[in-house]
């Protein structure tokens, strides 16, 4: 939204920048640094567009089709939603290793409350969302009030929540068919909108409700972070918590609210996960924490807090999705994907350091 305006400004200022390039090389680099400093999501956006163009040229319509491009969206939907939760926490200079565990436990609560206790599915879903929020509250309370390091708190909570998940669910999967007949609301986010398929119902752009939710969530968070006092406080707390406290920000309250919102978003991710895989499985989503951190870092959000945007995280998640699908369609070994993602992570952190150095 507002970022889009920044891109426009960049486009209009390009003419002058290029004109001065020859006689003022330093100035150009300086301006670039300044621009990236203002809009950290610019780098992942450029990388994303380049990646799409390169794979489009290499693979042609196999990749550059509404079907393949929307498939990428479906594949990143869960990571993107969890990444949004992760972004909030990392903006406060924290980290949340328990996001994946919260997601799975919430989905198990939604499933078991419906099938084990026979609660109305709406109530079960609400309980799952509440469960995620509560896990987030515990994280937030330990970080903000007990002043424990977020890394340690969420490392511990990751184990605790995951163990609770296995103990409570007795490692039992609720089958997709059962859900489809008895509680279809649980699969709500798997519902697909298809635009432009052929007569046999193949191809075309497929948007699951999970994808639509992801986009809506990212837009809503972008608004809240940029346009409300709470959003400004999240950045201030990540930037320098002592300064924020002295300037009249309720740091503890802000931190706890961030972890609670993060937990709630993870619970929504758990709901979307049921839609994606069809079943409720306590062993699913094990990599969500690492994948969400990857999306956040490639998306240009600083691990030191206070810098970056949720929009950047979305670009980061999409970059991973584009590489994964593109390399698979090229027939490359999947390890090439991991290798490239690894390089991107390190490059992204290097760029972050560079931007921060410039500002001083």
């Amino acid at each position, binding site marked *: 939204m507002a970022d889009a305006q920044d891109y426009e400004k960049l486009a209009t200022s390009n003419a002058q920048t290029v004109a001065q390039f020859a006689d003022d090389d330093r100035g150009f680099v300086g301006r670039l640094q300044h621009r990236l*400093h203002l809009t950290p999501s610019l780098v992942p956006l450029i990388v994303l567009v380049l990646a799409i163009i390169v794979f489009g040229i290499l693979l042609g319509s196999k990749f550059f089709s509404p079907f393949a491009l929307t498939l990428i969206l479906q594949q990143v939907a869960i990571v993107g939603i969890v990444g949004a939760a992760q972004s909030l926490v990392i903006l406060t200079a924290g980290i949340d290793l328990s996001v994946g565990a919260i997601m799975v436990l919430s989905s198990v609560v939604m499933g078991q409350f419906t099938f084990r206790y026979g609660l109305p599915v709406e109530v079960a879903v609400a309980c799952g969302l509440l469960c995620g929020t509560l896990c987030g509250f515990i994280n937030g309370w330990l970080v903000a009030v007990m002043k424990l390091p977020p890394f340690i708190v969420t490392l511990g909570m990751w184990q605790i929540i995951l163990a609770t998940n296995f103990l409570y669910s007795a490692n039992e999967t609720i089958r997709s068919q059962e859900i489809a007949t008895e509680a279809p609301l649980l699969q709500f986010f798997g519902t697909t909108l298809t635009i432009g398929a052929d007569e046999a119902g193949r191809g075309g752009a497929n948007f699951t409700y999970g994808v639509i939710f992801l986009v809506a969530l990212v837009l809503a968070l972008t608004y809240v972070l940029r346009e*409300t006092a709470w959003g400004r406080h999240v*950045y201030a707390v990540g*930037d320098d918590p002592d300064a924020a*406290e*002295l*300037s009249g920000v309720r740091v503890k309250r802000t931190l706890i609210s961030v972890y609670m919102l993060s937990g709630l978003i993870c619970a929504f991710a758990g709901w979307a996960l049921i839609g994606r895989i069809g079943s409720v499985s306590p062993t699913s989503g094990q990599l969500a924490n690492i994948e969400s951190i990857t999306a956040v870092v490639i998306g240009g959000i600083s691990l030191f807090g206070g810098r970056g945007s949720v929009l950047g995280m979305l670009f980061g998640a999409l970059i991973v999705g584009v590489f994964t699908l593109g390399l698979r369609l090229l027939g490359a070994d999947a390890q090439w994907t991991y290798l490239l993602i690894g390089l991107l992570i390190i490059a992204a952190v290097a760029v972050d350091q560079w931007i921060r150095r410039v500002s*001083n």
Partner: protein
Amino acid sequence: MEPILKGRNLVKRYGKVTALDSCDFDLMPGEILAVIGDNGAGKSTLIKTISGAVIPDAGSIYIEGKEVKFTSPIQARAHGIETVYQTLAMSPALSIADNMFMGREIKKEGFMGTIFRQLDRKKMETLAREKLTELGLMTIQNINQAVETLSGGQRQGVAVARAAAFGSKVIILDEPTAALGVKESRKVLELIQDVKARGIPIILISHNMPHVFEVADRIHIHRLGKRLCVIDPKDYTMSDAVAFMTGAKEPPSEAVAA
């Protein structure tokens, strides 16, 4: 006359360090009170107990004779006490306008403000620009530039402008000219006089003796965590003040009582 701000027997310990040792403090209505003392004497800790940033272990604080117990800077600000901390307390990655209105943002009118809680950026930017221009500190081109892109002096200017804009009862300045050049320091001194002319008393912590002797009505000399004495700058020289503050010279007995 009743002090507008009064501290009695204030104590603050950090582990084995006693930063405030039964410290008394008085600020009279409309005056500029300078607080001087060696590094580590406890000046910053003293003003932090008044601004709500530090909760004293013992002792009491009175505003216009009524006891107050601040547990956060927000409460002190609600009483019209504004502070420029030695560390400036700004968020480097956020803009000048964001920083000036941190913790007291203005929301848009109508449903965008009440339901969607949208900030009124235009209004905040206009007010921020006004305040900086008033101070003559407006060598800053863009009110939306990040504070970290400003020079040390400009940052200090913004912090002072923030305090001057919102302080209605007391303004506290902890070494406000430390990072400033000659010209910028002048501006801050003029600003201090302006604020005084508005009838608002000021607490000024400074190491710069010429500045202190130029603007102060009284000088509170702080030593080893407590008030050693209060002197009238007209009665003593700068070297006397430095001698009291370093312990090279015994303070005058009548000043100790004051």
